């Protein structure tokens, strides 16, 4: 009896090891790159595709990650700090030694859509889970465009990942659990605009990579698609219809906000500032409107603006209001205005500010404590730097200010605690 049990356990272990080895060596990996992609593109085809590729690469925001600050274009080197170590983006210029100069069309497709590069498995910091849904034509166009760039002789920086995450092949497990083989974003019964919007949102602009929360495996949680996630202590807000409406957007305003980075709801900051800077400002109005229509779940954009109603102010305790007013008149009103109207090209309004309407106060509190650098926006618009007030205000003063601002202009419960503020210092 015991012998049988031991044999069964041994068999289970052997099968388990075999399955794990099978996963590890990629036996269960399914490429979504069709066999005919092995066929190389002709020089004429490459030339013809390159121009459109420039646009696709912009919409997919390739440059922002594949170019280090003050680094050579497309030469990689941008660090991504993860809980498992630091990953550096790679050189994707057509340099034969350091870049993708020797990559075939199929190798490029597999890197972008399967997450398997010529040098081994990629880490999902490269959003191949989203790019997987890109069309063959679009990936070809990006390939043609990149191969037409200037080769950059810049060596790739070695990643600094801890064991076992430094074993690239181990990503086969992640891929098995997190990569969908459903590669089309098209949903029949919806308008071309809605469908284009879904393609732009999910495949090209890979919005879900930040705005969809991740599970314990760091995979996108499809049940909470685009409902907002914390990234390094900053909230990438809910951008579903409910979330955008909560922030005060209507479809038309949201589309122009993605283009200009500035609206009555505030100015893009943090990583979204970079998205506007490198990507969305160059996207066509049609694509941005399609994205907006999709996010608001509309077949077409409405003709008339339909701004959501202002939130109802919530009363705060007198003590909170007194403390907050003192701080606001002392340190905030000089720029944001007593009525919170802001100054064009200087400072954003607060009375209509999206950050005050979010359920989570982290973004507002961080901004009060640490400020925002000066930012240049498309069309010569700019915002002056917001000073950091960490040294001028106590945790209590920040909590009071935050509660009062959120309750008065954002309609949010005054639930920010001193500890909430303290954690962000």
């Amino acid at each position, binding site marked *: 009896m015991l012998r049988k049990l031991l044999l069964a356990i041994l068999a289970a272990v052997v099968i388990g090891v075999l399955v794990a080895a099978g996963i590890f060596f990629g036996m269960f990996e399914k490429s979504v790159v069709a066999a005919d992609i092995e066929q190389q593109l002709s020089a004429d085809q490459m030339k013809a595709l390159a121009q459109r590729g420039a646009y696709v690469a912009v919409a997919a925001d390739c440059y922002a990650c594949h170019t280090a600050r003050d680094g050579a274009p497309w030469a990689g080197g941008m660090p991504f700090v993860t809980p498992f170590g630091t990953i550096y983006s790679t050189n994707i210029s057509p340099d034969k030694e350091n870049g993708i100069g020797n990559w075939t069309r199929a190798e490029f497709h597999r890197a972008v859509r399967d997450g398997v590069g010529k040098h081994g498995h990629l880490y999902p910091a490269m959003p191949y889970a989203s790019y997987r849904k890109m069309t063959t034509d679009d990936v070809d166009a990006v390939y043609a465009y990149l191969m037409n760039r200037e080769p950059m002789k810049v060596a790739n920086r070695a990643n600094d990942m801890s064991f076992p995450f430094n074993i690239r092949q181990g990503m086969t497990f992640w891929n098995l659990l997190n990569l969908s083989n459903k590669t089309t974003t098209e949903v029949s019964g919806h308008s071309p605009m809605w469908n284009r919007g879904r393609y732009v949102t999910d495949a090209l602009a890979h919005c879900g990579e930040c705005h969809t929360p991740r599970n314990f495996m760091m995979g996108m949680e499809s049940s909470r698609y685009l409902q907002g996630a914390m990234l390094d202590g900053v909230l990438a807000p809910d951008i579903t219809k409910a979330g955008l409406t909560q922030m005060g957007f209507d479809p038309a305003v949201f589309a122009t906000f993605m283009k200009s980075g500035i609206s009555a709801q505030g100015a893009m900051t943090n990583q979204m500032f970079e998205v506007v800077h490198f990507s969305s400002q160059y996207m066509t109005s049609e694509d941005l409107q399609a994205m907006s229509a999709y996010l608001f779940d509309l077949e077409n954009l409405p003709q008339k603006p339909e701004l959501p109603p202002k939130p109802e102010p919530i009363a705060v305790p007198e003590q909170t209001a007194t403390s907050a*007013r*003192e701080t606001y*008149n*002392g*340190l905030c*009103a*000089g*720029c944001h205005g*007593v009525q919170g109207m802001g*100054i064009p090209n*200087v*400072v954003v309004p607060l009375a209509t500010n999206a950050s005050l309407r979010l359920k989570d106060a982290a973004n507002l509190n961080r901004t009060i404590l640490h400020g925002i650098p000066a930012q240049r926006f498309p069309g010569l618009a700019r915002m*002056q730097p917001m*000073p950091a007030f960490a040294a001028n205000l106590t945790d209590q003063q920040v909590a009071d200010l935050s509660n009062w601002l959120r309750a008065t202009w954002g309609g949010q419960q005054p639930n920010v605690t001193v500890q909430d503020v303290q954690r962000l210092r």
Partner: protein
Amino acid sequence: MTIVTRKLSLTLNDKAIGPIDVPETMMMQDFLHEYENLTGSRMGCGQGICHACTVVVEKDDGSLEEMRTCIVGAHWFEGRKVRTVEGQAKLGTDGEIVALSPVQQAFIEHFAFQCGYCTPGFVTGATVLLDKLKREPIERDAVEQTITDALDRHICRCTGYVRYFEAVRDLVLKTPGLVKA
């Protein structure tokens, strides 16, 4: 429309002021100009960028801090000790200038300014820097960068900054105790 006022008391250039009624939302600069006739702190950008409007605030521990008056409300200074450019020089009994402050003297000697609009801000900024170095002396090779970091935010449109920079550097180097031996 009524303007809501509140009592304001502070120490301004070593003199106790108030309590006086000051509009709740008035900026410090307007208070200095309109209530105290201290027009030295300049209105430049009105957005907290040019730093022509700064004043020295003496903190409880005696250390000095620079604050912009165009974007900070007058009531924020309640109970604080403030020094404007008018309070930098030593005055005689009749209010005549007996001695300029070391920073002011250095600016004069180096012909640091032309139109002078930004000068009150530079005097304030350099005074706060000297106070900081007195508390935390720096290495000789850090002097230039420290001055740049401290005064970079001050905007001047006519001197090209070089003479301001040289004046502050000379003063830092010749004032004992600011640079580690």
